[in-house]
């Protein structure tokens, strides 16, 4: 019995250290329970991605579940050698786009998502964080997404280019323009002015789906 327990523990350890791609191949070959390890690795970053891009916590929770359901449903479409991170973010983008196709959005800003005031923060820093959050949410979703992918998900330019289906140079330009717009919005909010492109992002701002293995 003890040997069996030890073997199970060793197997758990090995799974925790295995590369994403190896685990996904196991899922693809029918080991659905292995998906739990990938869930543990990715559900929090995915939630942060969705929450920052959509500004809606409930929707973000639902979309994370949808991503993992799609992985189960379409696991056969995962091609060995495909970087798993790129693949799961592609599924995540598609799930979001499909959601907005079915349910067009009207409100992007959830007051509860204003950055919480941490005791150690100075009042000025808290105010800055709140203004920055508002400035980010006032941007079109397409621009907000590219900033979130670059800054929070720490995707490289080439990974973002593959994900968005565009050239490397285009990604660089789009990120540069997005950060400049964020800077303008932030400055205007600091001065107490309404930003130039204020208003909720609408479904037309979501880029079209473009990628080889669409699921």
């Amino acid at each position, binding site marked *: 019995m003890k040997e069996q327990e030890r073997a199970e523990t060793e197997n758990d350890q090995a799974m925790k250290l295995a590369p994403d791609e190896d685990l996904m191949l196991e899922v693809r070959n029918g080991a659905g329970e292995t998906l*739990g390890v990938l869930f543990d690795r990715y559900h929090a970053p995915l939630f942060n991605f969705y929450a920052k891009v959509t500004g809606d916590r409930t929707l973000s929770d639902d979309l994370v579940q949808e991503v993992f*359901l799609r992985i189960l449903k379409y696991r056969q479409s995962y091609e060995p050698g495909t970087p798993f991170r790129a693949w799961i973010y592609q599924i995540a983008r598609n799930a979001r786009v499909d959601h907005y196709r079915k349910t067009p959005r009207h409100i992007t800003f959830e007051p509860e998502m204003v950055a919480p005031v941490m005791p150690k923060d100075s009042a000025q820093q808290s105010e800055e*964080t709140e203004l920055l959050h508002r400035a980010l949410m006032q941007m079109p979703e397409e621009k907000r997404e590219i900033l979130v992918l670059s800054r929070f998900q720490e995707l490289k330019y080439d990974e973002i280019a593959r994900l968005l289906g565009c050239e490397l140079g285009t990604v660089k330009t789009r990120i540069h323009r997005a950060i400049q717009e964020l800077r303008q919005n932030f400055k205007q909010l600091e001065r107490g002015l309404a930003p130039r492109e204020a208003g909720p992002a609408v479904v037309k701002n979501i880029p079209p789906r473009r990628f080889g293995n669409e699921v």
Partner: protein
Amino acid sequence: MKCEEIGELLPDYLQGSLKAEQDDLVEQHIAECGDCREEVAIWKKLSLLPVEQPSAGSRERFEAMSRAYQTGRNDKAAGIERSKRGSVWNWLRSPVGAVAWSAALL
């Protein structure tokens, strides 16, 4: 270097993944250029935004979804098996099936 070229290096600069000479170029430029300094500042401020955490029941919900998906697949597979068995039985009861069955017995 132009501001636009510097701007394109900033995400990597902030992640600390630039080569030493590029790193120096960025630092020299932002020391002299107020616009690019502001751009660096806004990138850095972005890091102040808190990381959003999923709700506490997220893992349980995932497990329930996986179980339901697996159960659904098993039920579907069992349904196909039942329907296959049913179709063989129906065929045996049909006139053609009855003839074939009789011939096999003879």
